[in-house]
């Protein structure tokens, strides 16, 4: 256990600068985005921006009978809705950005993790110590997958609370002034969804993670190009010869889903298919269902096979050009 923790600490120390830089850039981006939204919100509240809601005089709520809002309530609700929509979009874009950053980080980290050692010769140092090849390779995979997913999760939680804290109090005032109740966002539910999604993503991305590590172990040069090139070519092949977007969807489908789920939570509405506000994500029927599905079994088998080949290749210590 001590050995394995040391291996993980080693990975953290090697890559922490990248992680800190990315995290900082992300936080700067969050602040910038919220400043823009704040300015827009204030302009809207002061009536400097006209919303088409203000042209309405009222609406029918349901079949039980007419329910009229006063023009003042209507305008307030309209402005509040626009603001809520803006804030929820802010969360959605932020969530998508976290996922893109996550994918790029995993890609960059894993394709370089072994290649860098092979290039600078430090493989001989690491393999001159009583640590098994399997521990070395698996520590890189764990650091890449769990580590970056963990960072992404933390960023996501920060993102949710950041949005809560910076949510303009004037929106609440706006609604309260018109005798309307502001929608209460369930932050804990949001975080739970986020965590469930990340666990799902971890299982789902493992074959790709091991594939990138395999590339890092065997390629003689340009691991990033090889690592990205093969899935792209495979995707194009699938798209144009088989007429199916399965490969692209495998990589991208759920990156948008979490953003939609978060937006749905804020708007108190239903999100995309399988995503219900305030409930655990059910992108594949259910999280447990997905974990027990054939797809998971195949994913883990592919990952396991590739992992074995990667350890074998690492043992051979193939030269780089």
């Amino acid at each position, binding site marked *: 256990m001590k050995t394995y923790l*040391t291996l993980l600490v080693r990975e953290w120390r*090697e890559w922490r600068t990248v992680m800190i830089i990315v995290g900082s850039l992300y936080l700067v981006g969050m602040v910038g985005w919220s400043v823009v939204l704040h300015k827009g919100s204030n302009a809207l509240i002061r009536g400097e921006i006209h919303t088409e809601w203000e042209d309405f005089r009222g609406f029918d709520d349901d079949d039980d009978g007419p329910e009229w809002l006063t023009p003042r309530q209507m305008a307030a609700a309209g402005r509040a809705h626009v603001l809520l929509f803006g804030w929820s979009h802010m969360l959605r874009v932020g969530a998508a950005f976290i996922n893109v950053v996550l994918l790029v980080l995993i890609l960059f980290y894993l394709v370089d993790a072994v290649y860098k050692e092979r290039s600078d010769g*430090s493989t*001989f140092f690491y393999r*001159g110590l*009583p640590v098994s090849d399997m521990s070395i390779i698996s520590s890189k995979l764990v650091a890449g997958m769990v580590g970056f997913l963990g960072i992404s999760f933390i960023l996501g939680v920060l993102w949710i609370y950041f949005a809560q804290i910076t949510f303009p109090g004037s929106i609440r005032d706006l609604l309260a002034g018109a005798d309307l109740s502001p929608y209460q966002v369930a932050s804990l539910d949001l975080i739970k969804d986020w965590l469930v999604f990340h666990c799902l993503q971890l299982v789902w991305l493992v074959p790709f993670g091991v594939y990138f590590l395999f590339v890092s172990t065997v390629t003689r040069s340009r691991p990033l190009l090889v690592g990205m090139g093969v899935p792209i070519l495979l995707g194009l092949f699938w798209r144009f010869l088989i007429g199916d977007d399965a490969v692209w969807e495998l990589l991208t489908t759920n990156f948008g889903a979490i953003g939609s789920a978060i937006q749905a939570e804020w708007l108190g509405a239903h999100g995309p298919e399988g995503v219900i506000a305030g409930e655990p994500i059910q992108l594949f029927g259910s999280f447990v269902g997905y974990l027990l599905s054939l797809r998971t079994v195949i994913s883990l088998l592919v990952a396991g096979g590739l992992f074995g080949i990667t350890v074998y290749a690492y043992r051979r*210590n193939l030269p780089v050009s």
Partner: protein
Amino acid sequence: MEPLIDIQNVSKSFGATKALKSVSLDIEAGRIVGLVGPNGAGKTTLLRALTGGINYQGNIRILGLEPRTQRRKLMASTGVIHDVAVLPPWMKVKQVLDYMEGVHPQFDRPSCEGFLATTAIEQGKKIKHLSKGMKTQLHLALVMATETRLLILDEPTHGLDILFRKRLYTTVLDDYFDGDKSILISTHQVEEVEHILSDVIFIRDGSVLLYTTMDDLREKFVQLISPAEKAEEVRQLGPLTEHELFGRKVFLLKDVDRQAVERLGKVQVPSVADVFVALMGGEG
């Protein structure tokens, strides 16, 4: 008794190049063995095979362990210093110590820090900012502070100045070797290690040309410095080499009666370097 290192018919090819050709050796415990050969002879390939660094054909057992499949166990009892700077350049010195402490149960950190205190190496410095000599010193400190039964040094002084080279071998002898431990040193600068060796292996083109104890080597080979008029008589004995020095002829002879050849000139014990050059030249 089982030899410390048992190598049987080990071969290794890189594409069409045969780096090792059916090498077989037995090395007993408690020896300091020099693996001597020119560049490209196969020394590093053999040492990397011994440490499980590369795949190979044949059988190797070190301390009863197979390097490819039991590398982790083997490395708990074996220290290695490679020919090139292999310490991770991004790490700080302190971080390497942390790493060693975390993964090697036999690593004695206070001992290592004590060794480093006698050098100019600062623990806060990154390895990439150390000079080549400092990197070797650091690696040596790590290995010296680790309790092992076998030390493998692959061209440890390559690119170092004479002060570092002297210090390295002095440290290895004083702080590591105690008669029970074994050391395998690969070098092509045989003259700087011959005084500490108990055995020597000559290797060229992936084959072992000679494996003998230093005592046997001194018995077997004779350097004869003869006047020019006796040269023809010496040539009848089949010298391995012959060259001229200040108007006299210098011969290297193998398996001759010392007393019998004393009448032909001055008899001397040849250096390992002389034997090495003779054998290398003789084969090529």
